[in-house]
Structures are given as C-alpha cells and as structure tokens.
C-alpha cells in the first residue's frame, strides 16, 4: 500500500508544496543563525583582545596610547560585525537567535565598559551603549539590539577586569587607581546583591563577582597595612619622587 501511495505521490501536491515552503523557512533560520554565530565569535575574540590591550599598558603614556587604540578597535567592531548582527536581525525576531549572539554581546559590553572606565573612571549605561549601536542608513535606521540582560552579564564580568587592574596598579605604585577600582567593584557587587528576580546565569556570575570583591579588598588591605607601618606623612616623604610623579601623571586624566 505504502509503495503505491509513495509512487503515486505527485511532486506538486499541495501538501508537498507546503512542506517545501516550510523547508525554505527553516533553512533560512538555520542559515541566519549560523551567520550570527560567526559574527558573534568575531565580536568575542576581538573584544577579549581589546581587554588585553587595555591591560598591557604599564606607564601612563602607554595607557593613553592603548586607550586610544582600544577606542578605534571598538569602533571597528561597532561598524563591522556588530552592525552585521543588526542587519541580519533587521527583519527577524531578535530573541529567536539570542543564544547565537549572547556571548559576543556580553564580551563586547565588557570591553566597551572597561575602556570607558580606563578613560574617565565612568561606566556607561545600557541606553548609552544602545545608542552607539544605531546606524543611520540612507533610507532607514538600523539598530543592533543588545538585551539588557546581556548588558548586565557583561557588566558582571567587568568586575574581574577591574580587580585585575586594581592589583596590577598596586605593583605599578598607583594606589589611587587601585582604590578607585576597588570601590567600583564593591559598588557593582552591592548593586548585584540588591537585584532580585533574575535568572540562573546572573546568579552564577554573582559568586564570581563576590570572589572578585574579596580579591580586590585583600589587595587594598595589603597596600594599607604596609603603609600603616609608618605614619602616612612619613611614608609620603619616604618615597617622594614617584608619589609626585603620580600626581603630575594623573593630571592628564582627571
């Protein structure tokens, strides 16, 4: 029986026609998903490299240089693969492909925020980031929508980079920067502590954030307890050269 049905099946039956359309739709989805995965990987890798670049500077001048370079490279990301994601999703539902793009978005947020913090000690808000991802085309505006959750997840990762930066700045003798980073990590941790009703992902990152707080506070403690041995004024006098250096260097930034 089956055999007959099979053989007698007209190629152009409405049912087969319907399935051909369905096949086309599903293929489109898959192809788009695949392109988005690739774009997201590009964003992830370059964002990680930008973060490393920002850590690489040891002196103030080299920091300035690397911030400048980081900003350029972030721009290239924004105009390149991130715009590509926006174009891909222009006519398709964003959340359908959220799993494809979330790693890239999170890493980009981390890099973007770290660069901003390095530059002027300030973070930028979600709407501000969102605005940077608007593209004026001839006839229309394309927007790459970053979900707020991705923004918050990227921000949680940022505490790790701030912790690294804080400890690194101790060993380069820059204690003020260390305190600033420490306080930023603490404030972010307090922020996350107050949030409720989030999903598992953010809850998981909270414990990493907690560890980052512990690490950075221990580092600041070590900095203080060494300094506590002699009275602060005495201490200042004991190493006047580079304390003064510090201030003159810093002026360029504040």
């Amino acid at each position, binding site marked *: 029986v089956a055999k007959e049905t099979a053989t007698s099946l007209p190629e152009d039956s409405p*049912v087969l026609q319907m399935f051909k359309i*369905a096949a086309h739709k599903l293929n489109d989805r898959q192809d788009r998903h695949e392109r988005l995965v690739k774009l997201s990987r590009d964003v992830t890798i370059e964002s990680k490299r930008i973060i490393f670049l920002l850590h690489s500077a040891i002196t103030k001048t080299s920091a300035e240089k690397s911030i400048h370079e980081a900003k350029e490279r972030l721009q290239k990301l924004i105009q390149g693969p991130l715009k590509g994601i926006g174009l891909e999703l222009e006519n398709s*539902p964003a959340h*359908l492909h959220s799993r494809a793009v979330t790693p890239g978005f999170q890493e980009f947020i981390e890099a973007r925020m770290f660069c901003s913090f390095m530059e002027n000690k300030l973070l930028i808000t979600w709407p501000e980031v969102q605005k940077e991802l608007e593209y004026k085309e001839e006839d229309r505006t394309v927007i790459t929508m970053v979900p*707020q959750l991705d923004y918050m997840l990227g921000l949680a990762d940022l505490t790790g980079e701030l912790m690294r930066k804080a400890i690194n700045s101790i060993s380069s003798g820059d204690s003020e920067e260390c305190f600033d980073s420490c306080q930023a990590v603490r404030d972010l941790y307090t*922020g996350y502590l107050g949030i409720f009703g989030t999903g598992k992902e953010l809850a998981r990152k909270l414990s990493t954030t907690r560890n980052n707080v512990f690490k950075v506070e221990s580092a600041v403690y070590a900095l203080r307890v060494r300094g506590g041995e002699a009275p602060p004024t005495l201490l200042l006098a004991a190493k006047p050269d580079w304390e003064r250096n510090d201030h003159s260097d810093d002026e360029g930034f504040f």
Partner: protein
Amino acid sequence: MSSNHIINTIFGEFQKNLDQEQEIREVIRNICKDVDQISRETTTVLQVIHHDETAIPAACLKARELFEKANVGYNKLKEVVPSGDYYKYQDHWRYMTQRYCYLISLTIWLEKGLLATHETVAAILGISAEEQKEGFHLDIEEYLVGLLHLCTELARLAVNSVTHGDYNKPQQISKFVMELNAGFRLLNLKNDHLRKRFDALKYDVKKIEEVVYDLSIRGLLPKTENA
C-alpha cells in the same frame, strides 16, 4: 560621586525592567493557564473517536466551540506580549500551541480528511501565520510538531477503528500520513525537539502499514483501493 550615581542608575533601571518583565510573565501565565485548560478539555472531547465513530461529528462541533474560546485567549496574549518579544516569552505557550495545532489539524482531518495548513490553523487561533520581527504569530515549528502529534494519534485511530469494525479508515489514514511523511523528509532539521519528534514518525508510519497489511491479507480492504 558620579561613578556611584551611574551604577545606581544602572541597577535601578534594571530592577525596574525586571519587575515589569515579571508582571508581564504573571499576566501571560494566567492567560495561558486558562487557554491550556481549554486545550485539555478539547483533548478529552476528541478522545471519543477511539471508542465511538458515530460521536465524531458532535465531538468536532464541540471542539470548534472550544477553539473559539481559545481564540479569545490568544487575542489576549497578542495584546499582552510586547511587540518583538515573542521568542522571549515563547516557552510559556510553546507546548500549549503545539497541542492546539494537533487538535485543530485533527478536527479538520476528521471533518474533511484534509490537511489543515499553517494559515488555517493560525486563522482559527486568530493569530498571524507569518514570522515577523514584531508581533505574535504561529511559529512554523510548533505547527510542524502539532502535525507529528496528529500522525501519532492517527496511528492509534487506525488500530482502534479496526477494532470497531471500520476497515476504511486505516487506508485513508495511511494515504494521508504517507504524504505527510514524504513532506517531513524534505526538511533539514537541527538536533532539537522537532527532530526528535520527527524521528518517531517512522514508527507511526510502520504501525499504520501493519494495520493496512493485516486488512489486506484478510481481504478486508475496501475494493477501490489496490490500484
């Protein structure tokens, strides 16, 4: 300090949005609970097809009434779900929608012996069949999963209709499911739920063929067949 102020803004905004989202979810959950209950009722109504052929038309009518109630529910959903967030909240209605696709396509098959198209099913639920950037629609994947449920139910019906002495239906089912089977084989499926569900289709097809074969070797197949 300015930095602290920004951080406060960030978390305040986030909490506000989280709260809004929770509220929307609550509303969605409540709507879905009702609509889901209707789908369960419809399932029970249509169970009669396995014991009593004569009750089928009445069951279809009853099912149609229930679909109209479901339609109202889906309209509420459409209003509540923010444009563009269909896939964000999809999990709330995914299984329910698959069940409706199955129930509607079963009803239509019982009524007319035809395949309910994606558009038809969407129309009965009162939603769009087109996937769009914005808006509530009937996702094609749920529709296809519904059709696979249908095949399983029809395989069961083939068995039970023979038990009740109806030797026509198995062949009718066989033809219908074979065509669907051929259709499904045209799809490139990922390793997801739909794929797994499709993988089981071959057993339904096999069962139906066995029933038809049982009838055929006993000469119980109606004449028109066999060409």
